[in-house]
């Protein structure tokens, strides 16, 4: 038994829902009690989907348990098939149904439908959401393509040359509730198309069962999100000989390496190698003098395996940060994350407990946190800027604008998203240089925000207290004047310290001199 206050991943059947909802002409009958219908809101509220997930919940109740829950399952399957007329049916169970062992998949297969039925067995008490998504996509691919295996020759990545056409690839792994998948797909298709490579099928996002059957028309698979697609890619490799890519095109170096890998696999000459360096603004923005202040910024990284590893590489090699912590909640990716951490002389944090992550952040004392929405909240509590790089999804992670993480535009987005929370370089420099200037004092809020206190608030609150502090200490005119000259972001502290000092020394009136006495005393 594990005490969980908040979890990075949902149960495995939510992963199955992600696959079903991403696709067309599929329906998922889920043997589950009524409360499990909450999962619909993940899609309709977080992703703002205008359609309900294609899921029928059997919603069995306690009173059904004494009777025949199997009949209830069959009734729901029948109604769902009649109503939604899917081309492929997924059948599975959530945690509670797993315990009553009705075997809904077998029941469905015995009902005489002539559509493919995928029996999903997703162990809810040992596995989690991403595993469930991966397993569902794998089982679906396998079910729809296994019949054809024996008739098929191994697929050569070079066969496009014989066919006399442009090479074709599949983009596998993007799904609903995946981090920025919607835009990554557009970006990657654009990059491939520029290189003379056509996209055969994108799946599961937007694909139908027919598209899954067409996967074998492509030469190779792009495994864009290994958490979801690696098992399917591996099966297609074993059974059809289809090669798949290993590089995740997040960041400039990885995007270039990805393009190289695709070209090598397809034996397609890469003609515009030099141009690639200039496709994104990130390299120049990172090189420009303003970015000097980014050097050695301490950054803590936590997220899903893919995004955490990519973030570490970009942080260190492309932005010149110092990575002071790296971790993931994806146990399936633990090995790779550990290896990356080792290269950085760190020990990877592999945990599903956000409190452990928060403690690790505290200990590492970073200047920037790259994490999930939970780390954003932890960082907020600790007063550290943060940018979100990974699922679990939040409504904020589905922006209206085009906002990929992958490819050239992804690198641009990452530069902006990671750098803006830090204080802008020149501005930080100027604040430091001019902080003692009288003109500088008012209205210049720090981007860091957390230490800033507005002058107006302090002065207004003073007026309310008739210029006196709550302990009855009087601020003289010279004292007040001097206080306004203190930079806004430390003014609150100076005021408190001066009053504290005055109380300590029994000084009834604070003048400009008292301010300086206090400053000397506390320094």
């Amino acid at each position: 038994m594990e005490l969980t206050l908040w979890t990075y991943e949902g149960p495995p059947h939510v992963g199955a829902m992600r696959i079903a909802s991403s696709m067309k002409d599929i329906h998922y009958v889920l043997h589950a009690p009524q409360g499990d219908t909450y999962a619909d809101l993940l899609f309709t509220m977080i992703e703002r989907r205008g359609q309900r997930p294609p899921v029928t919940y059997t919603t069995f109740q306690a009173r059904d348990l004494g009777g025949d829950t199997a009949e209830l399952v069959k009734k729901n399957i029948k109604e769902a098939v009649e109503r939604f007329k899917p081309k492929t049916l997924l059948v599975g169970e959530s945690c509670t149904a797993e315990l009553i062992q009705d075997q809904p998949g077998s029941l469905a297969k015995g009902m005489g439908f002539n559509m493919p039925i995928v029996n999903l067995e997703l162990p809810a008490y040992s596995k989690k959401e991403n595993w469930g998504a991966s397993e569902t996509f794998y089982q679906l691919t396998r079910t729809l393509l296994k019949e054809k295996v024996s008739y098929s020759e191994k697929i050569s990545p070079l066969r496009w040359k014989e066919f006399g056409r442009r090479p074709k690839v599949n983009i596998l792994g993007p799904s609903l509730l995946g981090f920025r998948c919607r835009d990554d797909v557009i970006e990657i298709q654009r990059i491939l198309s520029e290189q003379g490579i056509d996209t055969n099928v994108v799946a599961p996002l937007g694909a139908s069962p027919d598209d899954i059957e067409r996967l074998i028309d492509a030469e190779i698979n792009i495994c864009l999100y290994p958490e979801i697609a690696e098992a399917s890619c591996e099966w297609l490799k074993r059974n059809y000989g289809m090669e798949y890519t290993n590089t995740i095109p997040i960041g400039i170096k990885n995007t270039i390496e990805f393009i190289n890998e695709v070209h090598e696999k397809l034996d397609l000459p890469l003609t515009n190698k030099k141009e690639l360096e200039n496709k994104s603004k990130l390299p120049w923005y990172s090189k420009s003098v303003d970015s000097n202040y980014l050097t050695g910024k301490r950054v803590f990284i936590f997220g899903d395996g893919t995004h955490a590893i990519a973030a570490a590489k970009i942080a260190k090699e492309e932005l010149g940060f110092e990575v002071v912590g790296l971790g993931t909640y994806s146990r399936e990716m633990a090995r790779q994350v550990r290896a990356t951490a080792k290269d950085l002389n760190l020990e990877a944090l592999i945990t599903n407990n956000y409190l452990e992550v928060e403690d690790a952040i505290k200990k590492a004392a970073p200047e920037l946190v790259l994490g999930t929405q939970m780390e954003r909240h932890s960082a907020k509590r600790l007063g550290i800027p943060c940018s979100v790089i990974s699922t679990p999804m939040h409504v904020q992670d589905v922006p209206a604008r085009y906002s990929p993480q992958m490819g050239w535009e992804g690198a641009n987005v990452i530069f902006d998203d990671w750098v803006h929370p830090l204080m802008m370089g020149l501005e930080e420099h100027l604040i430091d240089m001019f902080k003692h200037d009288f003109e500088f004092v008012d209205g210049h809020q720090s981007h860091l925000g957390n230490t800033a206190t507005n002058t107006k608030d302090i002065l207004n609150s003073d007026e309310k207290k008739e210029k006196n502090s709550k302990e009855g200490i009087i601020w003289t005119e010279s004292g007040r004047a001097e206080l306004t000259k203190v930079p806004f972001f430390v003014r609150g502290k100076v005021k408190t310290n001066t009053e504290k000092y005055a109380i300590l020394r029994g000084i009834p009136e604070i003048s400009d001199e008292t301010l300086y006495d206090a400053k000397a005393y506390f320094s």
Partner: protein
Amino acid sequence: MSKVEFNKETGPREVFCGLTSIVWLHRRMPDAFFLVVGSRTCAHLIQSAAGVMIFAEPRFGTAILEEKDLAGLADAHEELDRVVNDLIARRPEIKTLFLVGSCPSEVIKLDLATVAEKLNKRFLGQVRFVNYSGSGIETTFTQGEDGALKALIPLMESSDEEKLLLVGTLANNVEDRFKKIFRNLGISNIESFPPRQSTELPKIGKNTKVLLTQPYLSDTVRDLKHRGCDIISAPFPLGIEGSTEWFLAAAKAFKISEVKVHEIISPLINRAKLALESHKEILKGKRLFLLPESQLEISLARFLHNECEMDLIEVGTPYLNKDLMKEEINLLPENTKIVEGQHVEKQLDRVRESNPDLVVCGMGLANPLEAEGISTKWSIEMVFSPIHGIDQAADLAGLFSKPLKRNQILTSKTLVTH
């Protein structure tokens, strides 16, 4: 009882389970912790329904059952013991710990009552343990509160002191308003259940007069009756009419004259009517379809028809206790169609056929209906907003007028672009 049409429907449902009520219960009792004994699904449900991330550490959590716990029950008890020990060591300020049963814990027949009893002995004088079920195989949404309150009743001491007991979670500011009004009426001994501190449970007995603030407390009411309490029969304090009848019923039980009640609440009614006007203008004549979820649907339908002049197409409710809802049903217009239970697909067919102006539904259904051009109001907002009482009548109406108003704004052309 007016001629109301009662229907029952069974089939796939689209509703929250009782665990969801932890979201407001834990806020009501800041010294209590709610520990769900369940699965990752339970944990995921609660965090999806509540903005868990905003808490440094929320006062609710899930002891997630793992494969090894399912192998043998003795193990599960020991494991739960360990989790509870860790939790109490970490959160020493917790005074009451609710062990909340879930679908999986009910199915494997994990005996939380026995666990609670053992823990009560061990932590005597430090933490109290109570258990109830919020499982989706037994409870829908607000019924979780019913279970939690029922579980507290055995801990309530007996007293024959005459008092008014308000039962059902209220927003603190609404509760304060109600108490002030009752004091003005001359009722001085007023308590609330659940209380603001889990350790300050009211004493109850034969001179306790129970006034329900929420319509979903069937089991709690039954147990309070067993303890000798009088249940005041009244509609629920939603809207001016419901609240007025509610105050009158309480006053009658305390032998306070109607004249006195009117004298005190008339100014409130007058200003509430004024505040209601602008909303009524928008809602009047609009057709309303309520899908089942919170059990507040009947009271809401009564308010929206009688005071806001909306037309009722269908009033869904997950569960109907005709006895408890008697006074409400009496106030409904003739031929109101009440549907208990749900077949979500058939019900959505009826929604589309009837082309309503506004649908009250759960969050999973709202955006899909909006995408079809049907305005919606999420039912979960009713349990998170202060909507009770005369002073809140306009705010309550506002929850329904806002989506319609917004729709109007977004479809109107008021500015000419040059």
